[in-house]
């Protein structure tokens, strides 16, 4: 069998073995004790040629129902948006995707500058001073923010709204086991965090308060109220997780005095791809700059005074500080940060505002039409691009029938919120047309009628 990724010929091999001074490659493995060596081949399917493998995997892929061939109203943390064609063309430049972390600035200015630009764009959208080069995703970024707040304030209690993404909440619960923090979950009332409960739980042991803005139900949390409450406890930090597209139109958390803003830039140019890789971001204040997890790129000059960029403030990081590092993160999502940067550059300051605005407009249209058709909208507050509708039938059953009409329905909230049985979370992004929304309402009406 030939292997096109392996260039060493038999002749090469003989010459190389002779230089090394051995007879066979087996001698190079002689230090592996006999008792732990593999006998015989691994039990894996035999190698497959490029054409046959492509055919097989194309068929496998076609067994998935994709959100491009269907009309999807599924969001709940991962959104189907307009992706400019240019995005994939840029990230397919293999100087970007076949490089690693830019340790050698002289030959990595492209990646370093691209990250510096990404950091700037995230700062602009969130209203924060500093952003890092990316995190795995919004959920783990939020969990890192929680741990940072405890370390910074030397406090052990964190108040977390139940209206954040339930999978992010689950990740927080896993992450805080290391430092042994106490998580107090704050209920939601009418789709937003219960401010009275938040106020009563907030005390001098509270490291931080965690909300999502817009929250998991699409509702806009009253960050102004949260800030007032947090201010009553000197050191307590305010952490929000935010869909950065929403911040194209909504007042950014930075302007409400957030200490840390995290989220996922998947909305900018990154396909859903079954949940990953996406692109977490982490933004904070100047004060916390030296506590940030992950890579940071800074601007500097070379010996000739030319502008250039380097990885900086590395004394925070695991490869320098080892067990004293601020986080163990090493690899990040640089290529997806690049994709997000290209999408954000395409949109520009007008486009991001317009796209954000269109999401709210289209969701508002959906809400109005549903109400006019006699559906009950669960929550009454302001929202971004998601709304919750209460059906008179099981959501999974409704979704199965919708699929027969070519529609992927919304998220079944009863999976995470037993109190919200028969509640469907609908995402209406800029790519949904009036016609699609109208058809959805008609079909759901027929099913639930």
């Amino acid at each position: 069998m030939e292997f096109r990724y392996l260039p060493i010929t038999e002749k090469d091999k003989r010459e190389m073995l002779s230089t090394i001074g051995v007879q066979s490659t087996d001698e190079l493995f002689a230090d592996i004790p006999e008792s732990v060596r593999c006998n015989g081949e691994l039990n894996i399917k035999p190698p497959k040629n490029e054409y046959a493998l492509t055919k097989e995997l194309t068929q496998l892929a076609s067994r998935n129902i994709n959100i491009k061939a269907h009309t999807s109203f599924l969001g709940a943390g991962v959104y189907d948006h307009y992706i400019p064609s240019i995005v994939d063309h840029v990230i397919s430049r293999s100087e970007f995707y076949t490089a690693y972390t830019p340790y050698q600035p002289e030959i990595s200015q492209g990646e370093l500058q691209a990250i510096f630009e990404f950091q700037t764009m995230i700062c602009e959208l969130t209203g924060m001073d500093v952003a890092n080069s990316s995190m795995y995703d919004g959920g783990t970024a939020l969990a890192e923010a929680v741990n940072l707040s405890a370390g910074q304030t030397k406090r052990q209690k964190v108040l977390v709204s139940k209206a954040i993404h339930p999978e992010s909440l689950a990740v927080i619960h896993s992450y805080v086991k290391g430092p042994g923090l106490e998580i107090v979950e704050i209920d939601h009332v009418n789709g937003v965090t219960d401010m009275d409960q938040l106020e009563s739980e907030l005390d001098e042991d509270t490291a931080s308060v965690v909300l999502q803005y817009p929250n998991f139900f699409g509702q806009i949390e009253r960050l102004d109220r949260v800030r007032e409450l947090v201010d009553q406890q000197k050191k307590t930090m305010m952490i929000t997780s935010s869909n950065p597209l929403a911040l194209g139109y909504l007042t950014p958390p930075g302007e409400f005095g957030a200490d840390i803003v995290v989220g996922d830039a998947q909305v900018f140019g990154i396909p859903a791809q079954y949940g990953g890789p996406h692109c977490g971001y982490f933004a904070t204040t100047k004060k916390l700059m030296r506590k940030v997890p992950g890579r940071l790129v800074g601007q500097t000059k070379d010996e000739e005074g030319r502008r250039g960029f380097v990885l900086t403030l590395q004394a925070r990081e695991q490869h320098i500080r080892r067990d004293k590092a601020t986080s163990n993160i090493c690899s990040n999502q640089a290529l997806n940060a690049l994709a997000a940067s290209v999408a954000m550059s395409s949109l520009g300051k007008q486009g991001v505002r317009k796209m954000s605005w269109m999401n709210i407009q289209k969701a508002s249209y959906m809400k109005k039409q549903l109400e006019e058709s006699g559906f009950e909208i669960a929550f009454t507050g302001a929202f971004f691009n998601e709304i919750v509708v209460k059906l008179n039938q099981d959501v999974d059953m409704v979704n199965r029938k919708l699929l027969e009409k070519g529609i992927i329905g919304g998220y079944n909230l009863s999976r995470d919120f037993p109190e919200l049985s028969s509640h469907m979370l609908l995402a209406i992004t800029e790519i949904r047309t009036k016609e699609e929304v109208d058809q959805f309402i008609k079909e759901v009406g027929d099913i639930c009628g």
Partner: protein
Amino acid sequence: MANQDFPLIFELSQESRTGFSLPEFDVPETNIDEQLGEAFVRESEPELPEVSELQIMRHYTGLSTRNHGVDSGFYPLGSCTMKYNPKVNEDIARLTGFSHIHPLQPAEQVQGALELMYDLQDILAEITGMDSVTLQPAAGAHGEWTGLMMIRAFHEGNGDFNRTKVIVPDSAHGTNPASATVAGFEAVTVKSNEKGLVDLEDLKRVVDESTAALMLTNPNTLGLFEEHIEEMASIIHEAGGKLYYDGANLNAILGYARPGDMGFDVVHLNLHKTFTGPHGGGGPGSGPVGVTAEFEPFLPKPILVKREDGFDFDYERPKSIGRVKPYYGNFGINVRAYTYIRTMGAEGLKKVSEYAVLNANYMMRRLQKEYELPFDQHCKHEFVLSGKLQKKLGVRTLDIAKRLLDFGYHPPTIYFPINVEEAIMAEPTETESKETLDSFVEAMLQISEEAKHEPEKVQEAPHTTIVSRMDETTAARKPVLRYQKVEE
């Protein structure tokens, strides 16, 4: 901005220029500002650049030419396994049926994706000799933390709350001690001996009833196989601890040896290294974790199960450490790794390690003539030299690395592992031809000559790159981490 500076995208911006094509606005307009309330409508616009599509394309194409990747040239960055990233992997990952599926679609709609994940888990279990694999962790360090949390849950499940320490060799990756800390353990160091292997006597000294685990990379970061692995396993196991395998160096032993057979209990892999998921300029990666049967109850949830009517997720996992990531891992990277493994098969994967080790030994033996080799024995997929001899001439390892840039190479990893003075850690990988290795060796030998006769040529390198050495001190002292528009 100096004249010769490459512009930032913000510096290309002109008001009202556009690079987007948004869908039609086709619904009646609502007064959303009233809905939101004044305090929640953004007052000032985010200063994103206003540029045309061609400007964007030229900008990023320009940046790409200012970047070195594996496709640009040799990249022997030790411990990172910078092998070729097959193009078919990229095509498969971009198939609509893989790239445009939503993680919250019901399982019956995505059986193709689940089958691929299930098959990949099985294959990785076979390659590592483990019983079960989770694909949830997003990268190697994330996998380390996941594995350690499982070890912690295992001990606590036995009512053993006193195992507070994780042992890591002095040659370990920085992520090992960092992950131990994040998982709530104290990291304890075990020394290496004069052969570059874990010092068994020191291991016996640091092991006790507080040992939760030993984290080990095998072959280790010096590229040497820990040949006393079975003895180490029994030292740890007899003390009630567990053995953790850092899969960063798995590229050396595919089909030759399996961590499971060596006595490891928990293993993480870096699919972006050994299994060609591209490195992406820093990520995304994928860090699956394999475990022996006794750890299965602790795996992150949900786990993927095969039922009579197809694949599904099982959330009823009372002993699970919980979720470590939203959704099910970096699926897109897992698709690439799967495509690679299916291209190579068992036969190909074994050849991968054979040639990775052959290439490393060949390069090491040729370089040994001019560079100090602290551990003179066959290496595995990588090896570590010391720039000690050159340092005596006033040429540091950093200078050698910078001089290599002039030859069009990405230098090896430098100053790591920390137990070797002026370390130069090279990993050629199996996808490089003999001609490439020879040219690289010639460059290294020439640099060694230059160190003797014209050291300033090396000390002042690089000479041919688009920028010269950066002022990193100022970058850290007065950090500029974002662009600010200069008001005119």
